[in-house]
């Protein structure tokens, strides 16, 4: 390292290294020893001998090597920004009411092929639904059709390790169809995502929703991102556009994330692994909006309203069961217990009570897994593992 770069390092605490040399317009200002050695090899073709392209190539390689020296990792996707809190710890997504039974039948493990029948009563879910799922190394296709013939479909295809295309469909008789097309690109230190919902180019102007987002790792633990959405749902009406800003700090055993949405909502979430089997999470949403309110003179006036909601939850993972509990600031306490009685039989119990509205709901679910082939049956009973090799210590079939 030259004198110049070591002094930069000590003064600002930030090592630009090769970058400062390559970006310097006059090469003789900084020592060129190392740079020249690297470039000797590519003298030859027009594209590398040309001084302008040589400079551009130099800058590009130094930027990329500097970027690699930062040891950044992929920050995950925008969708999973606060996954640990919202999808892992909180039970809002898994809650149901009434009785439910899921009978799923697996025919093969590699590639995975499974069909399932769900029966439900007393809740919001349809009385009967049939689902099929097929998953191989690069593709995933899933579909659910219920007794009212409404279909939910999902198709993912991985072109390579970092490029995934996704299609989500919702078709129901007598209802407008919903189709979402999505493209995910996950590079070494950033994630890009483009999606469009019900795109329609046939009218006088674009109709539908388009969302583009980027999440970039700044340090190995910290990532910043931005999301831009354009939505034009009604023909003839001008579209809406908005920008959301997000940030996420992942310190292995705790994760903090924040999201500032274009509509004026701020969401902050914090997740912590308390011990090996216990996780806890808290999420706060602040929503600022402009609403008409009755003033003391009984005349409606517009006034800025600030709503805040906080949810706190915990998840306990035991050997054969998972317990989740959560409490929200508007007085709803809920809990959920998932228990695996046998390798092929599971029981789910969920209950929630709204203390302020004095309402409650309860759900009981049964999951039965059956086998469509002998291999899968042996695996489900713990005799062989997913690759078909005998499990050590398990009784062997004759």
């Amino acid at each position, binding site marked *: 390292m030259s004198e110049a770069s070591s002094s930069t390092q000590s003064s600002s605490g930030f090592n630009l290294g090769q970058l400062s040399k390559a970006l310097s317009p006059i090469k003789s200002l900084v020592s060129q020893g190392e740079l020249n050695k690297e470039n000797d090899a590519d003298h030859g073709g027009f594209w590398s001998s040309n001084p302008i392209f040589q400079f551009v190539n130099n800058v590009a390689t130094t930027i990329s090597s500097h970027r690699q020296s930062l040891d950044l990792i992929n920050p995950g996707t925008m969708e999973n920004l606060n996954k640990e809190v919202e999808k892992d710890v909180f039970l809002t997504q898994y809650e149901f009411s009434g009785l439910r039974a899921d009978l799923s039948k697996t025919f093969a493990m590699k*590639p995975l092929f499974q*069909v399932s029948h769900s029966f439900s009563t007393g809740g919001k879910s349809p009385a009967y639904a049939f689902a*099929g799922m097929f998953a191989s190394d690069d593709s995933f296709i899933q579909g659910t059709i219920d007794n009212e013939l409404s279909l939910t479909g999902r198709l993912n295809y991985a072109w390579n390790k970092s490029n995934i295309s996704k299609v989500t469909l919702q078709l129901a008789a007598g209802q407008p169809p919903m189709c979402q097309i999505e493209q995910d690109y996950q590079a070494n230190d950033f994630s890009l995502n483009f999606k469009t919902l019900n795109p329609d180019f046939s009218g006088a102007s*674009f109709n539908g929703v388009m969302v583009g987002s980027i999440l970039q790792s700044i340090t190995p633990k910290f990532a910043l991102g931005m999301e831009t959405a354009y939505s034009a749902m009604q023909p003839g009406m001008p579209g809406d556009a908005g920008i959301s800003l997000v940030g996420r700090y992942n310190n292995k055993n705790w994760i903090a994330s924040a999201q500032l949405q274009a509509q004026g909502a701020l969401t902050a979430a914090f997740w912590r692994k308390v011990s090996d089997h216990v996780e806890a999470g808290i999420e706060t949403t602040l929503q600022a909006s402009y609403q008409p309110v009755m003033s003391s003179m009984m005349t409606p006036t517009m006034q800025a309203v600030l709503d805040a909601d906080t949810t706190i939850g915990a998840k306990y993972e035991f050997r054969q069961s998972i317990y989740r509990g959560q409490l929200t600031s508007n007085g709803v306490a809920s809990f959920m217990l998932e228990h695996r009685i046998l390798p092929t039989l599971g029981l789910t119990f969920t209950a929630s009570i709204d203390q302020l509205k004095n309402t409650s709901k309860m759900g009981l679910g049964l999951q039965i897994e059956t086998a*469509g*082939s002998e291999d899968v049956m042996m695996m489900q009973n713990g005799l062989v593992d997913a690759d078909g090799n005998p499990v050590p210590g398990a009784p062997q079939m004759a």
Partner: protein
Amino acid sequence: MVALHLSEESRERLGKVMGTTRDIVHYSWIPFILYLGWASTSTKPNFVQLLSPFPSA
């Protein structure tokens, strides 16, 4: 934004094509999954085995 500026007639035709495509996707999505899965298994379960929730091994 990009727009195609189609005539009224072709818009109508496009609407019909989209409607038919929607119906085809609606009623062939699940059979397509079942076919993909059936073709990938070595045991080639029959139709009843494929649709019944009871174990078939």
